[in-house]
Structures are given as C-alpha cells and as structure tokens.
C-alpha cells in the first residue's frame, strides 16, 4: 500500500530482533500471516497443538500404566494367574490374527505415544526457556504453582529412564541374571530379590505418581475440557489416579523384596 510521507521500519518484525531493535518500533507494517500449511503440521507447530498431542498421548500412557498395573498385581494371585495373563496377552486376537500381532500393535501404539509425548515435551521446554532468557535475579515466591507442576520435566525424564531400565530388566532380561522369557512371575520375584532394583522401581513410580498428579489435571485444560460444574473433579481424578498408581506399583517391589509375600 502506498504510504504518504511515511517510511516504515519493520526491524522489530524479525524473530531475532534484539531488545533494542524491538524498542525502536513503529508499527503499521502488517503482521506477516504464516503461510497456510497442511493441517497436521500447522497444528503440531503451535504450542497448543503440541499440548493437545501431549494430552492425548498422556491419556494413552495413563491407560497403559493402569492396565499394566492391574495385570502385574496378579503376581499376588500366584504364578499361574499372572503367567496365563502374560500368555493371554500374546495370544490376544487369535485365531482371527496370528500370535502376538495384537500385542505388537499395542506396543507400537505405546511407543508412538512415548515418542510424541517426549518430543513435544522437549520442544515446549525449549520454547519456554527461550521465552525467558534472563531468569529473575531475586528469589521467586510461588503462590499457585506446586512442586509437581514445576518438576514435570524431571519426573518425566525419570520415568523415561526407568522405562529403558525396566525393559532391560523384565522384558529383554539383560539386567536380570536368571531371566526366563515368558515367565514374568519368576522374573519379577528374582529381580526384586535385589534391594537396589526394588529401590529403583519405588523411586520411579513415586516420580510417575507426581508426574500424573499434575499431568492428569493439566491435560483437561490442554484439551479445553473445562466446565465450572465439574472442574473440581479434575483435581480429584488426578489425585486419585496418582495415588492409585503409586500404591499399586510400589506394593510389588515393597512386599516382594521385604518378603512380606513369597512364592
């Protein structure tokens, strides 16, 4: 558009314009609208889109953790119970589908959920660091942000590392001396004979609980599920879920290692 008696600087429009350049600002240059790109990419580019993805993957992970816990708790019902369960998992879908296909499908889905969740978390974390390059120089006094919300990254990373350790321990067995494929019952008992392993499990699952305590509340906001009538239930849900996971998952290493229950 032709301008009369005006020349405009669009310095400040640059992403990398530094503080001083931003201040030397004369607006009027239209904000460049980002080129429309295919929906999923555009959506993923936005932080809100990533949070949505995190929430969805988060739900998948929550679902897995819950089911997985229930399954594992059968360990207290005895060897046959849990091993039939483990076997059932592998034969799931038969005869319609061949052996372990469904299980693999679930595994793939789970892996995708983890990857999406972690990549989004990493990218958002970087974005937030860029948003405040210089930290506050005096002590912050938080009012609303709780321990859980401020440690999401760390509890998340702990859980992530744990999963790797956990797979090496009970799925592929590299870390447990007397590992026997397809016999989770014994694997678990033997593995938990080592106090430090039990320790790792307990720490990791407490971290997971804390992670969920905030996550399972926050995801409702991210998904835009907000209704004054039910809002307080979001808090109850998250707290309950977190508590359940901590108690359930920690009970196994605890009771088994201390010998409270034995084969």
């Amino acid at each position, binding site marked *: 558009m032709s301008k009369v008696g005006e020349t405009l600087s669009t310095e400040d429009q640059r992403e990398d314009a*530094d503080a001083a350049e*931003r201040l030397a600002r004369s*607006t009027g240059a239209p904000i460049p609208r980002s080129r429309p790109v295919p929906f999923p990419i555009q959506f993923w580019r936005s932080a*809100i889109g990533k949070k949505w993805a995190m929430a969805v993957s988060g739900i998948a992970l929550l679902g897995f953790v819950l089911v997985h816990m229930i399954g594992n708790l059968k360990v207290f019902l005895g060897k046959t119970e849990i091993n039939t369960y483990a076997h059932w998992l592998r034969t799931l879908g038969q005869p319609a589908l061949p052996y372990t296909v469904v299980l693999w499908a679930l595994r793939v889905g789970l892996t995708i959920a983890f990857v999406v969740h972690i990549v989004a978390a990493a990218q958002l974390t970087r974005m937030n660091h860029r*948003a405040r390059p210089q930290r506050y120089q005096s002590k912050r006094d938080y009012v609303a942000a709780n321990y859980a919300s401020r440690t999401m990254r760390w509890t998340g990373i702990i859980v992530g590392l744990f999963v790797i350790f956990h797979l090496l321990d009970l799925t592929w067995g590299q870390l447990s001396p007397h590992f026997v494929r397809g016999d989770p019952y014994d694997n678990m008992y033997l593995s938990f004979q080592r106090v430090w392993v039990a320790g790792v499990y307990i720490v990791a699952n407490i971290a997971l609980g804390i992670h969920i305590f905030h996550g399972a509340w926050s995801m409702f906001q991210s998904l835009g599920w907000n209704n004054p009538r039910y809002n307080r239930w979001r808090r109850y849900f998250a707290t309950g879920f977190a508590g359940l996971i901590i108690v359930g998952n920690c009970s196994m290493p605890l009771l088994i290692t201390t010998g409270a229950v034995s084969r």
Partner: protein
Amino acid sequence: MKVTLRVWRQPGPNARGAFETHELDDLSPDMSFLEMFDVLNEQLIAEGKEPVAFDHDCREGICGSCAMMINGRAHGPERGTATCQLHLRKFADGAHITVEPWRAAAFPIIRDLCVDRAAFDRIIEAGGYITVTTGSAPEANLTPVPKAVSDAAMDAAACIGCGACVAACPNGAAQLFTAAKLQHLNLLPQGQPERWERVVHMVDEMERWFGSCTMHGECEAACPKEISIDFIALMNRDYIKAQFKQRRLAGQHA
C-alpha cells in the same frame, strides 16, 4: 516506618543491570508503594543520583502501567491488586523489599523497572477486535445478550494489560492475557463471525513472542483482576476446534 529497598537498576536495554540497596526512613504506612518510590526518587535527586525509572499513570489499578516484581511476586503480596494499589501498611516496619522488573524475552527492559509490553499490542493487532466499520452498527438492543454471558465477557474484558501474568508465569507464557482478550470477544454474539479466525491469529501471534502454558496457575494468582485460568481452557478449546474445522467454513457457529 522504615524499609530497606533492593531495587534493580539497569541503564539501558542491552546494558548489564544490578541491585541497588536503599534505606528509607519515616515513611507513612498509609503511603502507596509507588509513593514510596516517589520519596526514594526525591532522595536520590537530592543526592545528585539519577532517580529510578518506573512506569505508572492512573495509580488506581486500571491503566496497567505499573509493573513491579515485589519480593518474588508480580504486583506484590496482596491478591487482586496492581502495584499502585499496594500500600505500605501491608509490610512490616523495617521490612526488606526486593523489586525487579518483569522479565520475559518479549518484554525487553527499557530502563530500571520499565519494560516494553508492545508485544501485547501485536496480539491484539493480529485479531483482537470485532470488525465493525464506524456507522454501520445496528441498533444496540437488536441482539439481546444473556446477562450471564455478558457478565462472563466482562470478567474477561477486565484485563488491564499489565503483563503480570507473563511476569509470574514460570514459562513466560502470555496465555492468560491472550485468553482474556480473546474470550471477551468470542463469548459475545457480536464476536461469532470472526471467532475461529480470531483465535488462530491471536494464538499464532502470541506464540511468536511468549512461552507455552503448562498450567502452573501463577498467572491467575498474580492477576490484579483475578482473571480465571478457565479462560485459558476455553481458548485452547476454540483453537483446537478452529484447527480441526474446514478453514473455508471458519466463521460459522459452534
């Protein structure tokens, strides 16, 4: 009363800054926090030192100019008040008070406690309005607006654009401001035609400058107008809906 003040001094946008400590005697507890700075500045000028630069105008908690990080809290210890509405009677005699400017990449420091919040204007520019050419407006009572709705819109519209939400947010996110400005318009019937375009443009612009929201809720606690983070959820919902919508049809209802 007596106060020991640690104030951030910084000569310019790209200069290094540091805290400076000042003792202030015989202040009156009825004094406002900014009046304490007036006194400090008079004192400094008398000593031939440059006064502390800080933004202020209405001193009634409505213009949104004043902006101070007081003892680690945006706008200080009292809930639902801007810095200018804070009075010394809220502090103990002999208190130690540390004051910093807002800190965010999008709020570069101009000097001392003054920051540039122009990035907020950019978010509004991007779509924070209802397009109505002067003169073309229909009769005001043509569209009834349920009282509950207009009250909710007003709750959001109360935002004074102070930036405390960004300052308080551990992620330097402007979610509360943007959600407030957005929902004010998106809740009203008048705002429907541009609803989906508006949310996409405002959010995209916001994310060019600010961090992302992980639901810490600090913004709500710091907001002088106590604007609720529920509006953030509503904004997320509108954004997700708008993205999933067929763009050509953006503008239709629900």
